[in-house]
């Protein structure tokens, strides 16, 4: 590809530092400039320095992984590269020419395309329509058949399997991701940025994605792969750059990198990667289930069936893990078990007694705590004070409530106790909860919920969006509840987390349980097949 029209004439000397660092690709001629060179990118927002002098070189024919904890500055850096943000300082150099990417359009014209974690497709449109949407090469008179033929040709050229006439809303997450990638590649992208691309994929779909990425790389293009999954980063990337606190800490060859070493770079100190928290030998499991669900069906928010005939038994002293690709009924199941969502069929028993579905306060009163999937939408009222948020579960009874009253001073005392137990430093309890960091919000919610979880804790994606330290705290809390003889229902998108903590794992697919396995018999391949819709029942009983 010739130097694009937008390029400035200034040729930037980057060769000297590039030569020794060609990403281990000895096939590149010496002096080949990086496809992308970011130099000294600095971007500040009120109160934080999101990027601080970040240098990053991505060579042609390279898959470059960007690794970092939440808040390390990965997204900001990519938003600068895709023209969404403008850097405060630093240069973007493409193919050796300094470029001014002042808008997303300029970035696309320069051959930079991004596939976001949450797809930006129109569900009601067909694949062909989505690929051609907002594209200047879309023919002026575009009939469905013309668009579909063009899409078919594009799909063939980039060997991405898509069905041009299918409606995007009917596609699986993996298929939608292929449409997104095709959309980007069709616009002549040479740099493909993928943000957490495997979060929504089954292990098999992830393998398909990796094959497509390797084919793209083989043509001299580059991929920037954002992830926090250490194993897959080592598997797919050529080089790995680690960001921490807005700075680039290191760039490493993937060959020879270890998960432990990368984790240490990410966090800044040597950590025990995950403390395994095995069951204490002889830890009893209650003979009778604490929660028994029989034949549960429920609707989602749009009124469409989301759960079909779910039967699960949850015993005291065990952790039951729920695996599945996001959006297969996990949200609805977590809401049914905590009484937030009414059901259309089936019964729920708590300690053998029938529970009234859809009565969240009643479920909480019978000892079911709930760390919700989305703490800002459900677990907290971000605009209210920390005190008001801390007492959300216990305002009804003494000391805060009683006789229809609300005692602000008692609420303040309870909030201070919860914050102290959660080891969250709160400058002012009158401050809105949104001023707390995500990790501290989750610590507060977790502590508040364990106080009321006398029988069960339902934890939906408790480690999502947290840094390693906060995840440690939460997983330790969950293991402790199990050791105290309480039942835990753990939803997670991290199979490793489920395998490590759970005693049994049930897999949800399309609102149905594909089977329940004792963790000892569960391996990633079997779970992957079940997450893709294969039934495997080895009648996992409570240990």
């Amino acid at each position, binding site marked *: 590809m010739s130097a694009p029209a937008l390029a400035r004439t200034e040729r930037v000397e980057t060769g000297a530092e590039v030569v020794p660092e060609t990403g281990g690709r000895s096939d590149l001629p010496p002096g080949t400039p990086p496809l992308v060179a970011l130099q*000294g990118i*600095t971007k500040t927002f*009120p*109160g934080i320095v999101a990027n601080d*002098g970040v240098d990053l070189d991505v060579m042609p024919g390279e898959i470059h992984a960007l690794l970092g904890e939440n808040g390390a500055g990965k997204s900001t850096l990519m938003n600068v590269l895709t023209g969404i943000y403008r850097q405060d*300082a*630093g240069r973007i150099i493409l193919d050796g020419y300094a470029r001014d990417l002042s808008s997303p359009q300029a970035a696309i014209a320069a051959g930079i395309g991004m596939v976001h974690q949450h797809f930006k497709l129109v569900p009601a449109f067909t694949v062909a329509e989505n690929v051609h949407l907002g594209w200047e090469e879309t023919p002026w008179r575009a009939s469905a058949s013309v668009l579909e033929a063009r899409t078919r040709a594009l799909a063939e050229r980039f060997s991405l399997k898509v069905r041009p006439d299918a409606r995007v809303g009917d596609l699986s997450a993996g298929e939608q991701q292929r449409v997104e990638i095709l959309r980007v590649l069709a616009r002549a992208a040479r740099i493909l940025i993928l943000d957490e691309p495997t979060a929504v994929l089954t292990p098999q779909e992830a393998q398909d994605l990796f094959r497509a990425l390797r084919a793209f790389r083989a043509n001299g293009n580059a991929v920037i792969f954002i992830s926090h999954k250490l194993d897959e980063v080592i598997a797919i990337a050529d080089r790995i750059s680690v960001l921490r606190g807005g700075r680039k800490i290191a760039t490493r060859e993937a060959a020879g990198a270890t998960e432990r070493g990368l984790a240490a770079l990410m966090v800044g100190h040597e950590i025990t990667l995950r403390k395994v928290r095995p069951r204490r030998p002889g830890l009893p499991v209650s003979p009778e289930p604490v929660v028994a669900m029989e034949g549960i069906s429920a609707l989602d928010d749009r009124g469409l069936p989301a759960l079909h005939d779910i039967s699960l038994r949850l015993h005291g002293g065990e952790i039951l893990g729920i695996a599945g690709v996001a959006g297969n009924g996990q949200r609805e199941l977590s809401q049914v078990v*905590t*009484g*937030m969502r009414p059901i259309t069929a089936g019964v729920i028993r708590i300690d053998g007694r029938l529970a009234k579905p859809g*009565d*969240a*306060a*009643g*479920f*909480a009163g019978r000892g079911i705590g*709930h760390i*919700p999937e*989305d703490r800002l*939408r*459900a*677990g*907290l*009222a*971000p*605009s*209210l004070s920390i005190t*008001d948020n801390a007492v*959300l*579960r216990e*305002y*009804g009874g003494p000391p805060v*409530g009683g006789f*229809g*009253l*609300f*005692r*602000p001073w008692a609420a303040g005392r309870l909030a201070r106790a919860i914050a102290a137990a959660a080891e969250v430093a709160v400058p002012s309890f009158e*401050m*809105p909860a*949104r*001023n707390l960091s995500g990790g501290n919000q989750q610590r507060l919610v977790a502590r508040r919920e364990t106080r009321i979880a006398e029988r069960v804790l339902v934890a939906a994606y408790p480690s999502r969006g947290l840094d390693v330290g906060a995840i440690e705290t939460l997983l330790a809390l969950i293991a402790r509840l199990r050791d105290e003889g309480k039942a835990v229902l753990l939803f997670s998108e991290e199979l490793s987390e489920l395998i490590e903590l759970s005693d049994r794992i049930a897999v949800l697919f399309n609102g149905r349980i594909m089977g329940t396995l004792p963790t000892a018999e569960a391996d990633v391949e079997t779970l992957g097949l079940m997450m893709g819709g294969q039934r495997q029942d080895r009648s996992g009983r409570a240990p």
Partner: protein
Amino acid sequence: MGWRLQRTPSAHRAAALTGRILAILAALACAGIVLAMTGRAPIAMGADFWDTATGSTAGLEDVGLLVTPLILTGIAVALTTRIGLWNIGGEGQFGIGALAAAAVGLHLDGPEPVMLLAMAAAAAVAGALWILVPTIARAYAGVNELITTLLLNFVAALLIAWVATGPWRDRTGGALAATLRVPYEMPPLGEAGHWGLPIAVAVAVVAAAALTFTRFGYETRVAGANPGAAVYAGIPVRARIVAVMLLSGAVAGMAGMIELAGTAHRLQGGISNNYGYLGIMVAVLARGSCLAVLATAALMATLLNAGIILSAQGLNTSAVLAVTGLILFFTAIGDELAHYKLVRRPAPTG
């Protein structure tokens, strides 16, 4: 080294208050400049107004008559903002409350205290009924209450105009487009005032206390701040919406009764005198706080009174409404600016 503005996630309380005060001064300054451009002497007019309004008991009592309905309509709006909704229909509920009170007062007989209580009860029920349909539509079908409550204002205005000029018209005098004088009156307080003012203040204090110190108040706060969290905690959001909105309608209806029995005495078209709409402004300026409503209602009443006093000098109430509009406008700007603070910019690196 330089300085720059930085946005903070939440406005500091002192900054927000300063912003409001500056907004009011800026609005008055704008009005003054316009007055000066039309050849009037704004400063002299201001001094004249200040003497008349605060220099005598009568002046203060006039403000008291104006502040009473404003406190109540302000509370009516402030209540709904607590649950994240807006009652734009205070104007209509006010009128319907006055109508219900007039119906009771004109058509039933009894000892005065009993009749006043009956009128108040009728007004509160009528106000609540007037907001009932928007309430049900909001709580169960998600219909935007801004529009439904607003539209019912026009229905209420037409209904009152028809009653006052038609079936209930005062046929003894002949000339008036109003009903007969309602024979029951609020007990007087001072020269020209009546007991409506202490009642309105009491309503504001009780509302503020209820929102702070009761379980109902807490649940309302949570449901208003984040309905998702309310569902999560098992708070019956719909029931709270219904209760708060009906209460809001009842308070606005009560305001209509107090206006009728304390100040107007006859039901006529235009009895609500924009109090319902001004109540929105009172609540916005008070940032939804029931106690702050007392102060902002007093401010608004003072402005209205200025319009009345200065009408001798060729100003009319439209000018005053324009000033209140300016205040709201500058307040919105001030609220936004209160989020910013000046910080020292670090010396650029590299």
